[in-house]
């Protein structure tokens, strides 16, 4: 019996910005209903990888399949259809500052799914409650919230349409360790409850150990190691070992100007 087809299948993905080659032939599978976390240093192209899958960046070559459907080169209308399967938590939250919190959460329901505003608001309040926010917060502007609360609202927005696939871009960046753990717990809970597939990128190892089923390491534009999170400490890969232990010495050389 053949193994089940992955939810996301990436093959030979290449992306360059001018002379700088960022992704140099990425091969990656994200199994259905599993949480895969891509780790790697700053500037290694983790965000570019996610944005290629989302259709925000157009890859130079290679293949990205969602549920077996090739999504590179789709028209704008087809891309909107595929994107209805997605939810995304941006690194900075990317909340719409012209809208109150509840409208941010309900945005995908109103604009993406054509739900009436009166029907979408109670759904948004339920999602806010799921991430631990009260109804008083719903009428506030995003700029009136703390960083941790903004991340929760962004998480509520990412799960509001009950997407099949959720992307998390550095979900704990800029948060204190306690709030980061709260967000990690919420991510784990929300993904499990939805039965969604999750693709996350981070360099926060506490986050990796909490939300990942599988881990892949991106280095030099390629996936140099992947496996279950339980095997992360016995990867046998010097790059992975250096990264997860946060050592300055090792095969990964940071460019530091003297």
């Amino acid at each position, binding site marked *: 019996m053949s193994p089940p087809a992955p939810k996301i299948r990436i093959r030979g993905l290449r992306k360059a910005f001018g002379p700088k080659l960022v992704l140099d032939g990425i091969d990656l599978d994200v199994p259905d209903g599993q949480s895969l976390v891509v780790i790697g240093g700053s500037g290694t192209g983790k965000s570019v990888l996610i944005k290629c899958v*989302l259709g925000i960046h157009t890859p130079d070559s290679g293949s990205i399949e969602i549920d077996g459907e090739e999504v590179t080169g789709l028209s704008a209308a087809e891309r909107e259809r595929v994107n209805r399967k997605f939810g995304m938590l941006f690194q900075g939250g990317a909340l719409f500052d012209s809208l109150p919190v509840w409208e941010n959460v309900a945005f995908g329901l109103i604009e993406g799914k054509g739900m009436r505003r009166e029907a979408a608001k109670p759904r948004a309040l339920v999602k806010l409650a799921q991430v631990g926010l009260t109804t008083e917060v719903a009428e506030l502007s995003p700029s009136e919230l703390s960083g941790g609360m903004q991340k929760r609202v962004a998480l509520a927005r990412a799960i509001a349409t009950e997407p099949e696939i959720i992307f998390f871009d550095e979900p704990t960046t800029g948060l204190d360790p306690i709030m980061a753990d709260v967000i990690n717990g919420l991510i784990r809970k929300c993904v499990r409850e939805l039965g969604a597939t999750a693709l996350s990128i981070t360099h926060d190892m506490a986050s990796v150990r909490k939300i990942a089923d599988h881990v892949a390491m991106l280095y030099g534009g390629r996936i140099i190691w992947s496996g279950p999170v339980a095997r992360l400490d016995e990867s046998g890969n010097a790059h992975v070992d250096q990264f997860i232990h946060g050592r300055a010495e090792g095969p990964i050389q940071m460019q530091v100007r003297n």
Partner: protein
Amino acid sequence: MSFLAQIGSVLLLFLAASGRLTLFALTGLAHCFRPPIYLRLIGRQMVDMGYYSLPVVGLTTLFSGMVLALQTYTGFARFNAESAIANVVVLSITRELGPVLAGLMVAGRIGASMAAELGTMRVTEQIDALSTLSTNPFKYLVAPRLIAGVTMLPLLVLVGDVIGVFGGYLVSVYKLGFNAGIYIHRTLDILETQDVVSGLVKAAVFGFIISLMGCYHGYNSRGGAQGVGVATTNAVVSAAILILIFNYIITELFFAK
């Protein structure tokens, strides 16, 4: 040879930028006619661009009309042609000063604000977030602003025309001692439909240019706060230059014999 190469590379950059702008404009225009149409957003942009720009445009055209009457009087008095003040004021305001001054003022007020808003949305990934929420940024952000620009600036200019002519009337009647009835009679007598229509056509084109430049530079801004600042400056400067260029072209089309 290197000099020629430099000219060539500048020309290529210019052509590439023109191509990108044309594609952006065509994509934005196509989304103005394709559903879904965001009426709430269009209404909000119309209020912002039309209603809230009224004081700026009103004051600009009022004082322009007043100055025009004063300057025409002092100039025309040398030829004993003071009676032509009403004609000069109404034709100058409706054909040229109304649309151009309103266009330049709105470019400064609204073009800059559009570029700053969209630029901030770009650098804070809000535009990317729209795409992930199955919402086309062109349809949601660009099309409402283009529609508001094309419809609101003619209305502003129409109001500005009336206020500008009234400014000329105030100075002529209350300062220079003209007869009010004769002044109004001369104003209406010389004015033709084409004078007003040409001004409104100019206003519609200028409104499109202002919205297009604001959206284009904001949408494509890069590099954080500095990038947003550059986008804002570029939006206002390019809109102002294009307004003056298209003002000549439209005048040529309407009035060249």
